[in-house]
């Protein structure tokens, strides 16, 4: 019935607290006068006494049992209490101990945790540091590699560029040398042409002139005609040589750079060439033309060549007309020379500006075919372009552009 089951050795000696009468047993009742009267009475008395004793014993047994039970109950309770107390105490101790242990454990754990943390931190830090170091090293390596690569690429590019530049410079130098040599050759060539080719032509013409002056009368009409043909051909050759020389000099002669009054140049050239006997040119006053910066002598040659050409090719028309004007657009001035002459087929326009290129037979229109080539060269040297527009039988318009001079 016990709720607690204490260990048996812990309850040893604990029955001392039971009452003494239960330990010794009850006392029997005292003898009376009745006892001498009769044995039977005695016996009966004995029986009664026995019964009484018996009942007392029974009572006492009951009491004792009850007491014992009560005592047992008390003892049990006490034991339970004490046990509980002890248990509580022990529990307290145990708890305290446990708490202490726990605290110690905690401390230890904390310490170890701290240590471990420190260790771990150290390790982590070391690891982190080494990781950082490794990363750094890697980064440095990659940086170095990339730098080397990039430098390499840059160096390669620079090297390639340098090589290219060097090559270009070398090429340029070679070309310059070649050009100089070519120029020298050309100069030597033109010198030869000017001296050695002109001299015999001059001699031929000189002697023809001498015959015509001093011996014309000795010749028949046919003889004079034949001599005249020889003179014309020799003369043309002389002109070709002179024009060729003039053309070759254009590319090399130094250019002056002055403000040039284009109006005056054009009007002078027009006045010089339009007054062809037997031809009434439509009076075309040349409007004011924009001035340019350049070489006056060369630009005069441009006007002379274009206007004399226009006059030449318009000359055979019933009402020949030459018109000159200019247009300014942005930083470019465009000058026009237009005639209503024979014009030409635009299919041959590309041949126009070549040296000795002609689109007409020499007996139709005289000329060496150098005039427009000279125009082209002069205009190009001034930073401009030359254009031609024409229709066969309906005249031609030549135009050239030059950089405008600012109004200031």
């Amino acid at each position, binding site marked *: 019935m016990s709720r607690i089951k204490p260990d048996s050795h812990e309850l040893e000696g604990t029955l001392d607290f039971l009452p003494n009468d239960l330990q010794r047993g009850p006392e029997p009742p005292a003898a009376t006068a009745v006892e001498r009267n009769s044995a039977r009475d005695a016996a009966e008395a004995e029986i009664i006494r026995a019964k009484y004793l018996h009942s007392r014993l029974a009572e006492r047994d009951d009491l004792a049992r009850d007491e014992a039970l009560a005592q047992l109950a008390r003892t049990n309770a006490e034991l339970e209490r004490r046990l509980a107390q002890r248990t509580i105490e022990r529990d307290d101790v145990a708890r305290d101990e446990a708490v202490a242990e726990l605290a110690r454990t905690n401390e230890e754990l904390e310490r170890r945790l701290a240590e471990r943390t420190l260790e771990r931190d150290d390790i982590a830090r070391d690891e982190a540091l080494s990781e950082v170091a490794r990363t750094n090293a890697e980064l440095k390596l990659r940086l170095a590699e990339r730098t080397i690569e990039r430098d390499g690429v840059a160096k390669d590019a620079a090297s390639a560029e340098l090589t290219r530049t060097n090559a270009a410079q070398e090429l340029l130098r070679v070309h310059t040398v070649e050009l100089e040599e070519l120029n020298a050759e050309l100069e030597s060539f033109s*010198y030869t042409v000017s001296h050695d080719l002109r001299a015999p032509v001059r001699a031929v013409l000189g002697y*023809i002139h001498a015959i015509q002056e001093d011996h014309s009368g000795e010749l028949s009409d046919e003889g004079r005609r034949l001599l005249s043909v020889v003179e014309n051909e020799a003369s043309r050759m*002389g002109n070709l040589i002179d024009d060729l020389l003039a053309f070759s000099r254009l590319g090399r002669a130094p250019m002056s750079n002055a403000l040039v009054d284009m109006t005056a140049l054009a009007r002078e050239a027009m006045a010089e060439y339009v007054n062809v006997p037997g031809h009434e040119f439509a009076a075309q006053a040349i409007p004011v033309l924009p001035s340019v910066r350049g070489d006056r002598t060369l630009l005069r040659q441009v006007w002379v060549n274009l206007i004399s050409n226009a006059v030449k090719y318009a000359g055979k028309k019933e009402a020949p007309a030459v018109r000159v004007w200019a247009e300014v657009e942005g930083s470019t001035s465009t000058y026009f020379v237009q005639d209503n002459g024979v014009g030409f087929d635009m299919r041959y326009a590309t041949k126009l500006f070549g040296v000795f290129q002609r689109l007409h037979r020499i007996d139709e229109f005289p000329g060496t075919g150098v005039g427009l080539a000279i125009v082209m060269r002069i205009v190009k040297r001034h930073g401009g372009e030359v254009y031609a527009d024409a229709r066969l039988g309906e005249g031609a318009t030549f135009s050239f552009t030059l950089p405008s001079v600012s109004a200031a």
Partner: protein
Amino acid sequence: MNDYDDVDILLVEDSDSDAEMTQRALKKANIVNRLYWARDGVEALDFIHCRGAFVERDSHHMPKVLLLDLKMPRLDGIDVLRELKSEPETRAIPVVIMTSSNQDRDIEECYRLGVNGYVTKPVQAAAFSEAIASIGLYWLTVNEVQR
């Protein structure tokens, strides 16, 4: 009297035809002054300095004009010009270059050396005659020479 005495025009020219045309043009222009024709630069300098074939020439009589071709065998016109203009005794002799060349470098060099005139011989005969006549008239009749 030798053909080099009292010479007013010293023509230095290696081309027979040019020499002939020059003399003809002068004659046509009624320039009758005496002319000596030297075939190259060496002969021209010998003439001026009265050397070689010209030792007997009167060194006090200098030509009124020297018509000098540029391109000649042996010694060419530039060398003759250089020598004449570098010596005080001959510097005053008028020298006119008569050449086929109209090269800028020749013209520049001649003027640098002190030439008195530079003429490119015209190819066309009439123009050639006119040029010679003008030169002759100017240097022989208009121009005053150093005495």
